[in-house]
């Protein structure tokens, strides 16, 4: 467990602010940047890093989802159905993390970071699903008003089993590695399950609160979560994502993604080097 000092607290607050800003600009939670910073730069144990990161993930999920309710962007029924899978994955991941060595977790993080970077690069040009607004959305589908086009978007959910599997894997990776897991779910929901990107992102962000809670509870109960440092990280991320959403022009998102993908490749290489020892 890291020793808490005022300097360390301020460093973590600043790191949280940076991760929150980046996360808001990229549409990510920011955990994928916080965990390597804690583990590789500050030298915290992997479990302590994941625990702090997961608390920021919960805060982001609750804040973002609270702001989005009432717009029908969050598909609550689909979210709650997939939560069954994601919470199971998260529970198993949280328990497994207690028995797996740090070097295995570092290698797994290195592997996932490469995948995240590749997904980011492959989605530089976002495409949306365009559907007939008069279509019947069914039990799990949805309908929302899109501000940009001024029209109503209606969609049905396709390939539900795939969405369930992706949610389970995302939950598992989330509590093992301390990230939200949206980067795994959103592309699957959007590309294969017929869910428009904005609805997929909103629904994923909504589910992540439950996912991260299942994982974070295990770390917290096991005494691996340092409250002062978690407070600094959570408040930093809240401030950063507020600023990122307020001032971040999405115009430069393409270059930001390329930059972050490059950063993730470096993080991945460092994790492999550290984990290989």
């Amino acid at each position, binding site marked *: 467990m890291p020793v808490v000092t005022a300097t360390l607290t301020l460093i973590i607050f600043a790191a949280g602010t940076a991760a929150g800003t980046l996360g808001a600009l990229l549409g990510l939670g920011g955990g994928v940047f916080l965990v390597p910073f804690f583990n590789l730069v500050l030298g915290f144990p992997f479990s302590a890093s994941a625990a702090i990161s997961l608390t920021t993930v*919960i805060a982001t999920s609750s804040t973002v*989802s609270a702001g989005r309710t009432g717009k029908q962007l969050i598909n609550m029924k689909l979210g709650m159905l997939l939560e069954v899978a994601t919470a199971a994955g998260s529970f198993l991941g*949280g328990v497994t993390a207690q028995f797996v060595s740090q070097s295995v977790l570092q290698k797994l993080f290195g592997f996932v970071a490469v995948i995240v970077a590749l997904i980011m690069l492959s989605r530089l040009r976002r495409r949306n699903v365009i559907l007939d607004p008069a279509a019947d959305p069914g039990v799990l589908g949805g309908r929302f008003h899109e501000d940009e086009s001024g029209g109503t978007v209606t969609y049905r959910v396709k390939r539900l089993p795939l969405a369930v599997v992706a949610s389970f894997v995302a939950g598992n990776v989330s509590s093992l590695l301390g990230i939200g897991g949206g980067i795994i779910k959103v592309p699957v929901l959007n590309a294969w399950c017929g869910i428009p990107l904005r609805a997929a992102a909103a629904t994923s962000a909504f589910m992540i609160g439950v996912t991260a809670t299942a994982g974070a509870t295990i770390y917290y109960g096991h005494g691996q979560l340092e409250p002062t440092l978690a*407070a600094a990280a959570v408040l930093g991320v809240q401030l950063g994502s507020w600023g990122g959403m307020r001032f971040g022009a999405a115009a430069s998102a393409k270059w930001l993604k390329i930059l972050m993908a490059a950063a993730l490749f470096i993080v991945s290489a460092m994790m492999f080097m550290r984990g290989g020892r």
Partner: protein
Amino acid sequence: MSADRGSGRSAPRAGAATLERTVGTVLRAGVIASSVCLAVGLALSLFTGGGVVTGILLNTGIVVLLATPVVRVIVSTVQYVSERDWAFATLTFIVLLELAASAIAALVLNRRG
């Protein structure tokens, strides 16, 4: 029969709007309450070096943060039960059981050391 089906179709839509509002309120309240506890606790720990009150505030903030999604699931279960939407009442209840399993696992692991 057809009238019954008609009301059954409009009730969930009204229920969905109610649920979305309630969920929004729960999440907002949780975020504000936990952020205030964490901010005051953090300020105390930085400026006074911490103490019993600081520890209580910080841990309360963390617990409220962790409890917020759980309360959101409980509220959803209650709403689906009141709508007699048994499929989703069951699904949300399973999620609650999974969250309870995490809490139990945490306690067991803690006891093991």
